[in-house]
């Protein structure tokens, strides 16, 4: 539980939207050019602040999608009743300005010396900080074995599908598609359950480290399932996205 104290004041910095990439119909990755970005660790997040021309401001937190040392990028899912995510996924264009503050968080973080083997479990856009972890593993030249269990509604909703289509050596990506599947789909086609975890997760005897990120119901069931498989609670790190209109 020992943490690295982050004691400097985090100030807002102006960011310029760089290249944007549409990942799915509802999900976009935005590169953010921040002149004095202090760097970040895989799994951390940032606060984003938007200002309207009448002075109204809205702030939200987003997971960082890029590895340390890569340009800062966030991947945002549009929530239709949201205020910030529709702007970021539909309106924001390269060259637009917003503000960013961070990096934030130090618990849901993986670094090379955190070790493994790693079990990464993502529900929907919960994949974002886990993608940063997979990229950091490659960047650091780590050979820690990784199993990534990634639950999406359908193949069209899978984020980073081309990147995970050719995963780096030692990284296994296991998909489950909960709502609809392509014809001839051979993978899992149901919500993550204890049987699936027993098939996919590293045995507890290998002292794995688990990172679980997604909606609350996903995280609750996966985290409880891993504890049921003998994972110590302290080796299961969770990050949850509430359905809060973010």
């Amino acid at each position, binding site marked *: *539980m*020992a*943490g*690295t*104290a*982050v*004691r*400097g*004041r*985090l100030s*807002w910095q*102006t960011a310029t939207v760089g290249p944007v990439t549409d990942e799915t119909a509802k999900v976009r990755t935005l590169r953010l050019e921040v002149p004095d970005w202090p760097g970040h660790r895989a799994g951390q997040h940032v606060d984003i*602040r*938007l*200002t*309207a*021309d*009448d002075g*109204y*401001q*809205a*702030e*939200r*937190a987003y997971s960082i999608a890029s590895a340390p040392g890569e340009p800062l990028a966030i991947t945002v899912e549009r929530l239709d009743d*949201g*205020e910030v995510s*529709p*702007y970021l996924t539909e*309106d*924001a*264009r390269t060259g*637009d*300005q*917003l*503000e960013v503050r961070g990096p*934030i*968080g*130090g*618990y*849901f973080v993986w670094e090379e010396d955190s070790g493994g083997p790693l079990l990464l479990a993502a529900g929907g856009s919960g994949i974002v900080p886990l993608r940063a972890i997979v990229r950091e593993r490659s960047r650091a030249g780590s050979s820690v074995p990784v199993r990534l269990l990634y639950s999406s509604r359908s193949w069209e909703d899978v984020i980073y599908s081309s990147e995970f289509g050719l995963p780096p050596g030692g990284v296994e990506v296991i998909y489950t598609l909960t709502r609809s599947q392509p014809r001839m789909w051979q993978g899992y086609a149901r919500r993550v359950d204890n049987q699936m975890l027993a098939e996919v997760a590293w045995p507890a005897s290998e002292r794995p480290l688990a990172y679980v990120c997604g909606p*609350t119901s996903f995280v*609750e069931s996966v*985290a*409880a399932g*891993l*504890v049921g498989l003998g994972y110590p*609670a*302290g080796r*299961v*790190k*969770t990050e*949850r996205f*509430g*359905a*809060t*209109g*973010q």
Partner: protein
Amino acid sequence: MSPVSRGFRRKREAAPAGRVPPGQYVTKDFPVLSAGPTPHTPLSTWTFSIDGGREPMSWTWEEFRALPAETLTTDIHCVTRWSKLDTAWQGVSLDVLLGMVDYDARYVLAFSDGGYTTNLPVADLLGGKAWVAFDYEGAPLGAEHGGPARLLVPHLYFWKSAKWVRGLQLRDTDVPGFWENYGYNMYGDPWREQRYAGD
């Protein structure tokens, strides 16, 4: 001076004046945020203890539930920016619990199942401002929201309202708890937007 984000406009209704701290928005959901799996401690082994006073104190679940409880309705504010208005709780006031302890400490470190801790000044727990809550909206507090009992300190950001709370350690000095060690604010006043260290 913040740069204008071209084309960004308010979409949410303005919150009731003076009701919602800066940077927060109102939600009707009750989002869940925690760092690890949800612990499930049976009531038969649950205790609430206060250490660091002249005598250590501890209550079993039955003893705790026999203490006078209050019902209250309050607004809660999470550092992740949601606020929830008019939440209804039942719990034992910290005035009652700390009133049974002889101590002169100025700070506490609250501790929970799962290893979570958070630090608070004693003054913020007294005077009808803090409870150990066991009932939410008329039903036993669910495990995902911190049941069987959580700290409820609604005038501070909600991470100070430790879920699955099992006791308080009275201390002469203020030491950071779990999130505070990861850069979150030592005090956490939402009205001053004390989200992170140095705010």
